């Protein structure tokens, strides 16, 4: 049965959160769930719900390096988690943005944010093993667990990835972590975007320790991580200009601090087939995730962007800026829309948890 319910431990504020949510439910008053507040003005649609502040509900509950499993409360800052992992030479495989120390584990899962290693090391959605959450009926529930394989009941834990908190207030999360790579090396190649897309996809088809592939500003960057012998031998075969760590783009990509991300122009994120040809202006495009994630700056017409995404086998969101009162995500078909609405009601019958954040109708 589920251990963390019942007696309150230091850092465990779940009872306070339940009480606040009961109050909101009684008043039929929607809430906006917040911990670090690092993603308040992007990713989701504009909303003006009262804040449900869960920032006090934090702390690492359990960490067993030999199990490759860490359990922490939802508002635990990722920096605290990374520090604990670092002592055991382990890492969060999905390289989430830390956002100046404000990003929390719960927010990262709710937003399904993963960094440059995503195509090879998986996303936060892939690393998740179990969650505890408070649903819209104010019930504190536990799904999944702390073990690698668990197919009892539906995978409610993974369903929270990208749900922006609209199915439950996440309170505790268990996830799989990985050993830090023994060696990492980045190679740079001067190259146009179209050639870079072809090259990165071809490289990804070879059994080599690739862990990053991006293109911007006329250069392709490939990152190798793994056993030192494998990294060194691959670098010899692949050529390119080896870079000092400080000259690589990975940190700036992960934290979105590259100059590319500066400025007020709307930021579009395409999630598409990795080998799809370039369909946006190269000078305003940044290609990451081996071609599967592409960024575009500019005030484009949403309908045109949806068409581009669909033609490339994927979808698009207005990640930051632009008109956040309208829809910011690719529209869903009527069957799926109805299903998603029924699923929302299954968790949150009164619609009090972050309503309207993902879609106006959800």
């Amino acid at each position: 049965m589920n251990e963390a319910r019942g007696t309150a431990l230091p850092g465990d504020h779940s009872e306070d959160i339940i009480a606040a949510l009961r109050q909101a439910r009684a008043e039929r008053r929607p809430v906006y769930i917040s911990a670090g507040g690092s993603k308040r003005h992007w990713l989701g649609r504009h909303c003006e719900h009262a804040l449900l502040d869960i920032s006090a509900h934090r702390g690492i509950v359990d960490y067993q390096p030999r199990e490759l499993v860490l359990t922490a409360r939802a508002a635990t800052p990722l920096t605290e988690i990374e520090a604990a992992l670092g002592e055991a030479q382990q890492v969060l495989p999905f390289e989430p943005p830390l956002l100046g120390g404000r990003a929390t584990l719960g927010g990262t899962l709710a937003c399904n944010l993963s960094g440059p290693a995503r195509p090879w090391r998986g996303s936060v959605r892939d690393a998740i093993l179990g969650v505890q959450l408070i649903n819209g009926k104010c019930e504190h529930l536990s799904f999944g667990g702390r073990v690698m394989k668990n197919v009892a009941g539906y995978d409610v834990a993974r369903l929270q990835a990208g749900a922006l908190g609209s199915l439950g207030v996440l309170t505790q999360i268990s996830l799989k972590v990985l050993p830090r790579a023994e060696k990492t090396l980045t190679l740079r190649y001067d190259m146009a975007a179209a050639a870079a897309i072809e090259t990165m996809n071809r490289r990804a088809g070879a059994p080599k320790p690739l862990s990053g592939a991006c293109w911007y500003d006329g250069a392709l960057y490939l990152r190798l991580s793994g056993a030192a012998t494998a990294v060194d031998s691959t670098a010899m075969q692949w050529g390119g200009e080896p870079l000092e760590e400080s000259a690589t783009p990975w940190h700036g990509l992960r934290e979105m601090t590259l100059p590319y991300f500066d400025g007020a122009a709307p930021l579009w994120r395409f999630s598409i087939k990795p080998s799809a040809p370039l369909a946006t202006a190269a000078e305003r495009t940044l290609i990451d995730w081996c071609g599967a994630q592409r960024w575009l700056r500019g005030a484009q017409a949403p309908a045109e962007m949806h068409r581009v995404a669909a033609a490339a086998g994927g979808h698009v969101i207005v990640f930051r800026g632009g008109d956040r009162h309208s829809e910011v995500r690719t529209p869903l078909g009527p069957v799926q829309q109805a299903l998603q609405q029924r699923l929302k009601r299954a968790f949150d019958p009164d619609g009090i948890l972050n309503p309207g954040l993902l879609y106006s109708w959800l």
Partner: protein
Amino acid sequence: MSNLSISAAAASHGLYYAPDPSSQIACSIGGNVAENSGGVHCLKYGLTVHNILSLTVLTVTGEQLILGSEGLDSPGYDLLALLTGSEGLLGIVIEVTVRLLPAPEEARVVMAGFDSVEAAGDAVGAIIAAGIIPAGLEMMDRLAIRAAEDFCHAGYPRDAAAILLCEVDGTREEVMQHTAAVVQCFQDRGASSLTISQDEAQRALLWQGRKAAFPAVGRLAPDYYCMDGTIPRGQVAFVLSEIYRLAEAYNLPVANVFHAGDGNLHPLILFDASDPQQIRRAEAFGGDILDLSVRVGGCITGEHGVGVEKLRKMPSQFSTAELLQFEEIKHAFDPALNLNPGKGIPILKRCQEYRALPARHHHE
């Protein structure tokens, strides 16, 4: 389409489909989605849910849905993840797009025999602590070793209390580096024997014993009852010793063959189905193993699913409110309960212990 035929079709491109359940000759990719199947290689390469890109699904009302995309995520709720492992209760999967991986340059198996299951269990943790994620890390205990050896003649040490089969893969240099590290780990934990595969034929033979372990154990008794609990890796030795204690108490032999790297146990309880008393004892023994798995922080099924058999065990892992949440999810997809009725999640009106609950939860 069978799991194995996917990798066979991709082989000419130097690619393969990573999840490889031991039943991969026979099991279908649709069934793999329904159970979120893993296999020998899932510690490093993930489960079905990590290796599929999209599903074409028919809803209970016959409407077609495409979940997932050609990219790495989808807008809205991740129904692809929710459907995976849902045992066909939410929709009918009719087409699966899988993600293929480049076949590793090289793979090697290190087999080590140990005089105790404790030493073998400790060696599992030591490999992880050394920073190595093996492609596969499997454990078999004495009864399973002997049955598999008699069946396949793979060269398993018949006197060992347990063996570990550890596969490392990657580039040639990486495999050499990691093989040496694994051998060191096993020696440090007092391995009584060590075999390193020298070529593909030997690697295949070492795996053949493991993959044929179920039928091999099946020859030892008229029937066997295969359990499937997952536990934290560090609990392997304790749980095995408890299983041996239960085997004596129930007076039924048990063989253990399992995914040690994932902590996914597959105890095989040997019995004779023509004896109703033995059936009852085998079921009670199996139930005790699942309760034990939950007690040490694990779950009642890693990859075989709940089906009908484990419905009665769901309340040992989930509270009433959690089971009701599952019912609400089911209701959102299939309100009349037409898809695989009576499987996967207990519908509480059928559960005696929940008869007293308010009627609105009962999908009347």
